C-alpha cells in the first residue's frame, strides 16, 4: 500500500453517502491514550519515544481491524506526503509538524488511523461518512479493547485515562461531526446554530483549507467535556439531541430559501457553476466557496447533471498536496491555481 495510491480518489468518509449526508458530511471519534510507566511526550526522552513507537506499532499492526493496515514513519516522510495525510485527515497538522520519532498506522480504506507520539502516546481515530457516531464508537471501542490486551494504559479510577492535557482527561474521547450549513449562513441564521451549541460547551471550527476559518460553510463540531460523563452519554447527547437539532435548523433554512428566494438561490448556484466551468486560475479558497454553493444546489435538486460524489471529489483532489502528487511535481501557488482550474473544468464538463 502506497500513499500515492490514495491521492487519486476521495476518502470513503467523504464519499457523499451515509445517513443525513446532505448536511452531515462525516462522523469521527478519537481516543487519547498513554502507556503506563512512561512520561508524557513533553518529558519523554528520544529513546523513550522510540520505545513507545516500536511497542505500539507492533501491537496495532498485529490487530484485526477488518481492513489491511500499514505503518507510515511520519518523521521520515516527505513534506508532500505529510501534507497529503493532513489533507485526508489521516494525521493532524501537529503530528506532521512536530519533531521526534513518530508514526501512523492507517487502514487501507482510511476509516481507522492510529497516531503514535502525537500529543499523547496514542491517538486512535475512526471516521465514517454521514451521521454514524454509534458505529464509530463500536469500531473504535473494539480496537481499543484489543490494544488494551497487549499494552498497559496509564489509568486511574479517579482520573480515568491519563492524558497530557487535562482537557482530554477521563474518557480521552473527542466526538466530532463535520457539517455543511450553507442555508443557515445564507439566511443569516447561523447564530441559531451557535446559540444551540452555546450551552453545551461544544467547540466549533472550520473544516478545510488554511487556518480554522470556516470557509465554504463547513463546520466541525466537537464535545469539550471528557471527564465525569461516560463515552455513551457523550455520544448520545451528540447524536440524539445536538446534531438532530442542527439538521432541523438547516433543513428548515433550505426549505425557506426554496420557498421565498428561489431566484437568489439559483443565481448563486448558477454563478458558482459558471465561474467553476470557465475560470483559468482558481485559488483553493475560492474553489471551496464556490463548490459549497454547487453542493447546496445539487442537494436541493437545482443542479441535476452533477452528483455529490463528484463535488466532494473536487473538494479533496484540488487541495495543494493532492494536486502536486497527482501531477508528479512540485507546483508554485500560481501553477497550482492553473492546474486546479483545469481539473475542475474538465470534471464539470464531463458531466
Amino acid at each position, binding site marked *: 500500500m502506497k500513499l500515492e495510491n490514495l491521492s487519486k480518489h476521495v476518502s470513503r468518509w467523504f464519499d457523499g453517502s451515509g445517513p443525513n449526508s446532505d448536511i452531515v458530511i462525516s462522523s469521527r471519534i478519537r481516543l487519547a491514550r*498513554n502507556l*503506563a510507566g*512512561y*512520561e*508524557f*511526550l*513533553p*518529558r519523554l526522552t528520544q529513546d523513550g519515544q522510540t520505545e513507545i513507537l516500536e511497542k505500539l506499532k507492533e501491537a496495532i499492526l498485529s490487530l484485526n481491524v477488518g481492513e489491511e493496515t500499514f505503518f507510515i514513519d511520519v518523521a521520515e516522510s516527505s513534506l508532500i506526503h505529510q501534507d497529503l495525510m493532513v489533507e485526508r485527515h489521516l494525521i493532524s497538522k501537529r503530528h506532521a509538524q512536530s519533531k521526534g520519532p513518530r508514526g501512523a498506522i492507517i487502514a487501507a480504506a482510511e476509516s481507522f488511523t492510529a497516531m503514535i507520539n502525537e*500529543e499523547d502516546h496514542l491517538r486512535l481515530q475512526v471516521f465514517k461518512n454521514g451521521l454514524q457516531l454509534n458505529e464509530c464508537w463500536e469500531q473504535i*471501542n473494539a480496537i*481499543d*479493547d484489543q490494544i*488494551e*490486551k497487549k499494552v*498497559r*494504559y*496509564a*489509568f*486511574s*479510577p*479517579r*482520573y*480515568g*485515562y*491519563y492524558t*497530557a*492535557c*487535562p*482537557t482530554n*482527561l*477521563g*474518557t480521552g*474521547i473527542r466526538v466530532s461531526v463535520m457539517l455543511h450549513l450553507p442555508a443557515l449562513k445564507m439566511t*443569516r441564521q*447561523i*447564530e441559531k446554530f*451557535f*446559540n444551540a451549541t*452555546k450551552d453545551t*460547551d461544544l*467547540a466549533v*471550527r*472550520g473544516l478545510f483549507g488554511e*487556518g*480554522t*476559518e470556516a470557509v465554504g460553510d463547513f463546520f466541525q463540531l466537537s464535545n*469539550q*467535556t*471528557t*471527564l*465525569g*460523563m*461516560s*463515552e455513551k452519554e457523550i455520544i448520545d447527547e451528540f447524536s440524539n439531541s445536538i446534531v438532530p437539532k442542527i439538521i432541523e435548523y438547516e433543513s428548515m433554512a433550505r426549505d425557506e430559501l426554496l420557498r421565498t428566494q428561489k431566484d437568489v438561490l439559483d443565481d448563486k448556484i448558477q454563478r458558482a457553476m459558471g465561474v467553476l466551468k470557465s475560470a483559468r486560475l482558481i485559488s483553493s479558497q475560492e474553489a471551496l466557496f464556490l463548490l459549497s454553493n454547487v453542493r447546496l444546489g445539487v442537494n436541493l435538486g437545482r443542479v441535476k447533471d452533477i452528483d455529490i460524489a463528484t463535488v466532494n471529489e473536487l473538494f479533496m483532489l484540488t487541495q495543494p498536496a493532492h494536486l502536486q502528487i497527482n501531477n508528479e511535481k512540485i507546483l508554485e501557488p500560481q501553477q497550482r491555481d492553473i492546474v486546479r482550474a483545469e481539473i475542475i473544468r474538465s470534471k464539470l464538463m464531463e458531466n
Partner: protein
Amino acid sequence: MQCQQCKQHTATIHLTEINDGTRQETHLCEACAEQQGLAIKSQIPLNELLSTLLASQGSDKNISQTQTAHTATEQMPPCPSCGMTFQEFRKGGLLGCPNDYEHFGEALKPMIEKSQGGNSTHTGKVPENAPDDSKKQIELLNLRNRLEDAVQSEDYETAAKLRDRIEHLQ
C-alpha cells in the same frame, strides 16, 4: 442576529452579564466588541486557551486570594517523577507524567473542573485488565452519584436499592 452597536454586521459575540440577579445580554459583531475593549480571538486553540486561563489565574493583582494561590503554585516543588514544574505546565499547557495529576492536585483541581463542566472524577470506560479494585471503585463512584441524584429527586425507592448495592460492594 444583528450587532446591537453598528446594526450592520452579524453579531458573533454574545455576552451575558448577571448583576444582582438581573441578567443582561449584549450581542456584538467582532469589530464593535473590539472597540468596547472586548478583544476576543474567534478561534483559540484549546491549549492556548488553557495556558491563558492558567496564566490569568495569577495576573489579577487586586485579588489577594488568587495571588496567594499563585505564589503557592510558584513555590511548589517540581514533580519527583518527571521533574515538571507548575510554571512549565502553565506555559505549555501539557503535563509531564501521570503523577503530575497527584503532585499538582490542588492547583489543577479548579482548572480541571472549569474545563470539564465542573466534573472531577471519571465515570467512563475502565480497561479490562485494570485491577479489580479500580473497577470496583468506579462502580462505587457511579452508584454514589446516582444515589445523590435519586435523593435529590426524592426517589427514595431507587435510593434504597442503590444504597444496598453500595453496601454490598463495600
